[in-house]
């Protein structure tokens, strides 16, 4: 299985994560500051890095920057900093995911898995097929009507599928409830209807690791919905 490096100055957290990951069969390497992490990365074949931000000697942000100079392994930042700015900063300097503390262990595991899948199996996916739509780890095959997230199949109802397809086809564009309704049901929207919103929530629950903080299907409150470009 994959080798995962966990880096946090809080040893208890590192130990707890180790327990979870060991249960899933991963090999764990531990580091307690940025310098140690870089050292381990050089010595070992690491497939995924979990790194804290606020650490002695070299913090997570600078460590990530340094690592990105020579490695493209998935990096998940684990931080107590839950501000938007922190998340944006983390993702912009090269992290693949951002998990805030205190985290749900199951969510963390899911994210680890997802990132590893993308890194190992979907890295060089063929996207020449016209019926194939891909946004990040989300992949829709319109021929087979199959939807996969990080390689895992997701079962959607026909309406959910159509909505997702519409959004993925127009990746980045915001659709209002009425617009979605009109294009899926081919009827004029009467307004004041939350059917679409319920479907969207269902889709989110199926394709997102944390539906409240969706990676793909984003809610633009008071405006509509969209699939974020990755």
């Amino acid at each position: 299985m994959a080798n995962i490096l966990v880096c946090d100055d809080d040893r208890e957290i590192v130990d707890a994560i180790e327990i979870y990951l060991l249960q899933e069969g991963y090999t764990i390497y531990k580091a307690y500051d940025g310098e140690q992490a870089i050292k381990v990365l050089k010595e070992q074949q690491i497939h995924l890095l979990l790194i804290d931000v606020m650490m002695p000697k070299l913090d997570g942000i600078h460590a990530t920057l340094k690592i990105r100079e020579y490695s493209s392994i998935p990096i998940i930042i684990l931080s107590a900093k839950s501000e938007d700015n922190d998340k944006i900063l983390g993702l912009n300097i090269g992290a693949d995911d951002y998990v805030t503390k205190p985290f749900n262990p199951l969510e963390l595991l899911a994210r680890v898995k997802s990132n590893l899948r993308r890194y190992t199996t979907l890295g060089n996916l063929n996207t020449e097929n016209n019926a194939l739509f891909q946004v990040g780890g989300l992949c829709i095959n319109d021929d087979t009507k199959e939807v996969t997230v990080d390689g895992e199949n997701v079962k959607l109802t026909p309406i959910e599928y159509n909505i997702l397809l519409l959004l993925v086809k127009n990746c980045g564009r915001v659709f209002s409830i009425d617009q979605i309704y009109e294009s899926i049901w081919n009827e004029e929207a009467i307004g004041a209807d939350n059917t679409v919103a319920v479907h969207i929530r269902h889709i989110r629950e199926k394709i997102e690791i944390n539906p409240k903080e969706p990676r793909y299907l984003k809610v633009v409150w008071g405006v509509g919905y969209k699939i974020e470009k990755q």
Partner: protein
Amino acid sequence: MGKDERGMTAEEEKQVQAYTDETDTDSRKTEEIIDKKDGNRNRKQRDGRKKKVKRGNHAARMFLCIVQHLSLAVMVLSVFIVAIGSTVYVEGFRSRGGFNMYTMDRKQKYEESELFGNIFGYAAADIIRLGVVSGQLETDGVFDGRKLIDVTAYNFRDIGLPERYVTASYYLEDLLKWQNYGFEWTGTEMTGAQARDFLADQTRVTVIDPDSKYYNTSDASYLKSDVESYTFVNDVSSNQLWVDAEDTDGFVDDYRPANLETVEYDDRETATDSAMLEDETKALYDSGAISTYNVLVNRYKTAEGKNLEQYVSDWDLYYDLCHNVQYAANSLSYNYNEYLEAKQYYSMENSNVRYLIRKTVGENTQIYTNLEEEQEIGNVLSLAEDKEKGEEFFFPGKYIYYSPADMTYLTNTSIDEETVRQILQEYDYAYPETVEIWLGVDTSYPAEDAFTQGQAGFNNYQPYFMQWIALAFAAGILYLVLLCYLTVVTGKDVDQEGRPYVRLTSFDRIPTEIMFLLGFGMAILIAWVMVVVTQLLNLNVADVMAHKTVAHTQWFKATLFAAVFAVDMVAMFFFYSLVRRLRARVLWKNSYLCRFFRLLKRCTLQMYDNSDIVLRTCVPYGLFLLFNLLMMVWAFDTNASFGILVLVFITMAVDVAVGHLLYQNAKEQQQIVKGIETIANGQLEHQVKTEKLHGDNLTLAHSVNSIGKGIKEAVEISMKDERMKADLITNVSHDIKTPLTSIINYVDLIKRERIDNEKVQNYIKVLDEKSQRLKQLTDDLVEASKITSGNISLHFEQINLTELMNQTIGEFSEKFELKNLTTVMNVRVKNAVIEADSRRIWRVMENLFNNIYKYAMEGTRVYLSIEDMPDKKKFIVISIKNISASPLNCNPDELTERFIRGDVSRTTEGSGLGLSIAKNLTEAQKGTFEIQLDGDLFKVILTFPKAKEEKQE
């Protein structure tokens, strides 16, 4: 799984304990709340009472106001009644007008009053005069046209006759007719001789007989002529000479009994002192020159059938005689007219006065009376013999009997002897001492006359006189008291919080000038109405003033009352308005003049503020310069001397210099002002250049620079503080979150261990829940503190509320289904678009919906509505209503203030900060957030300003 009894018990105990604690606090809270509610209710009741009192106050003031007008009306009416009642208009014969009433008579009968006495007194005077006139015109009680009138004696009747005089006698009717026709004089040209021949050869002189039994000449002469009708005039042809001065003295001194003789005298034998004149006259006569002599045309002859010129031989005496005839005729004519009227006025039918005057001169007795029956006259005369029976006089009523001869004065009136004697003395020439006067008033009043008028007035007013005066005083005092009171309290009022303020009526808000104009107009209108009414009713102001009958009528009084009431009402309306305006200090503020001045001020200031500082200096200076120049031109025009020319040039030079200085100064100031503006606009590092500045401007510039520096430092410090605050929050949350992560993880790990011990499982469950809650709490705390410290940045965009609401409902549909909650949405606005931060407004909605999910009663409906604000169309109102599962016994405000108050949520779920965060976020997005509780109905009302419709499709 086996149950551990003890464990369960312990937990239960704990729970029970906790529950009791909660209920304790709950019940305490409830009590407090009930107290508060009671307090509220009490306050409301008090307010209500206050309002009632206020309304009551208002009504009471209205009532007092009306009472005030009424009291003035009553006072004026009372005064009016007292005024018209204190005098009575009486139409006596010669005495017409107001007779005073006397307060001392108010308990007397009319007949005992001063008023009656006065009227009676005037009547007595009339009758005594009538007696005199009757004596002149009557013979035996009947008008006698053939009565002889000795003209000279008649004219001298009140001053007395000389013992010797020239006279002629005419028939009364001739004189009256002559007077009616008029006396004519003709100019006749005569020579001296002719003139002498025109007159008689001798002047006929009448001499009063020294043997007369009268004490003085005047008595003798006139009374004789009056009573004895010409018996004393002797024949013309007496040879007795003109009595000289010595004789005259002797006659006066001796009081010889009178037996009048007429003596003839020759003017050629006049007294020595006139001898010279006589000579001249003689010379004139003899000269033969023609002169014009005025001669009276003898329309009527004397009783002897002669012309006047036949009585005298001298022109002076002739003229005297002619004038005597003229005067006598004139006087008699006047007396005759009066006599006719008085006879009529004091006749039996027209008057209540009864009179009888008996005058005895010598053997001759004359009776003047208005008694018609011989019998009555006889009664009177017989009664006069028995004066002891004065009380039962000759008719019922009041009487006066006066007989100067035997010094008897009898009366049952208040008129005393002195009064009657004084009246008699005026006519002493006509009344000898032997006169007897009976005067009486028939108090059964068979006729309408002055007495009945007096009686009417007396009876109408006299008994109530004091009451009216008292009423007038009382009403007057009441009026003053009310006026003072209402002036003090008018407009004073208390608002709902109990603070006093001045309440203005809508009339009080009318501009002051218009109020004054209206007041002036009303005054003119009232005056005009009064004039018109007076004219329409043909009212004579003089009549009213004289208290004639019109003033006594009921309608006049009613009209007066109403008029006073109305006038006072109008006057007080304006007066109180004025008082209120003064009290509220709006008299000036509310006037057009004030508005005009304010406008003027604003215009000037606006011009001043908006103009350049240089311009501001230049314009006044320019005006000054212009004035200076004009003065110079004027100086040139008037006095163009060399000295003045020099002075003018110096002045001009100074002007220019001053102008330059002013310009420099203004420029420096402008530079500083610009510097200040730059700093105010945010460029705190800006410094005013000080190199070219001088004096105060330099100091000012330095100060401005240091202020700018100070502000810059302060801003930097405050920015640093802000950053530190934000860092602090972040750090604290980080420091809490790191250990929390371990707790959560290890609790989770423990959960994964297969632990059979149920007690431990329960412990783990509690740990799990509480650690999750702590996580939530930390997040909320950070967010709430950030929002309240304003440490969030908002990205405003256009938000469609309908969309948002639908999205939210969609998000919560599952949760709501769990609790069987149904949402009912009403959108009553077309484009519910506002400007807000998308994620923050979602947070608001999320918190609210979470709140509903947590606290709403299962199986109820949740009502959501989006609509325009009823009166302000620029706002959108979102209301969310649901039925609470548990009773909400707390203040709506407390729900959102928990964080601030540090109150800990009672429930295990959530942080209790949800509503607080929602409220603060709403307010950060320019909305308002209000919670209303109505029983179990929980209602949240959000308002947001509408977005500008630029991006609308």
